[in-house]
């Protein structure tokens, strides 16, 4: 029987790796994929806690997170493709119009 804290430690590690990926990478698609990695890490902790408390609420939360993540990926990729189809360079540093 694997203690739930192992799952939570793995979830924290994946979340940290995803965060580093969002900050360090310059390709917006890889940044987006790192965000998906962070979402999956949180899903894992939801399921681990639900397993520990013996209720199915954790799995229902993950169900909703998956649905929202799917919608977010569709819209986000449409935005990224719409922006970067005009330019030839694909770097996140170019999107600085909103910088103060």
């Amino acid at each position: 029987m694997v203690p739930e804290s192992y799952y939570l430690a793995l979830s924290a590690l994946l979340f940290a790796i995803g965060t580093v990926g969002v900050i360090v990478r310059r390709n917006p698609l890889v940044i987006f994929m790192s965000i998906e990695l962070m979402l999956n890490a949180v899903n894992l902790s939801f399921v681990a806690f639900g397993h520990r408390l013996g209720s199915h609420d954790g799995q229902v939360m993950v169900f909703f997170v998956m649905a929202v993540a799917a919608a977010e990926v569709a819209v986000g990729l449409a935005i990224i493709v719409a922006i970067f189809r005009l330019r030839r360079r694909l770097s996140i540093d170019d999107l600085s119009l909103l910088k103060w």
Partner: protein
Amino acid sequence: MPLVAFCIIALVAVGSALGLVLRRNPIHGALFLVVNLGSIAALYLMLGAEFLAAAQIIIYAGAIMVLFVFAIMVLIPGKAETGPDPRRALRLWALPVGGVLFVLVGVRVLIPRAAPAAGSAIAPGGIEAIGRLLFTDYLFPFELTSVLLLAAMVGVLLLARRRA
């Protein structure tokens, strides 16, 4: 024995996450993410969430990652991340910040507190119990999610339209 299985799957998950973050080629990163999603699905199976494991493979690895691969193929001529990084020093701060984040989150979730008495570890019912919850306690978020998906679909169609 479950501990050995968990360690192997966890190693695959962490290794593929590092592969996603470290590889230059975004297609390689996408493939590493597919491996990661598969290992997360295996962990769901170990936690008794069979429906979620199947949904993870179908939705995440099967639909979302296909979307990503299509987007990467469309944008490849953009030549991602060429040239030296003008903000390299600032970005390298991400590594200690990531370590601090891991320590903070890990300490927070791993310190044993007065936990509520754990119910039977594997609640029976599987998909029937999830369906029952979705249509009773979580009915309002369920309906909102359908509205959200409709809005996302309309938004994507609008964004993908060619400006005539």
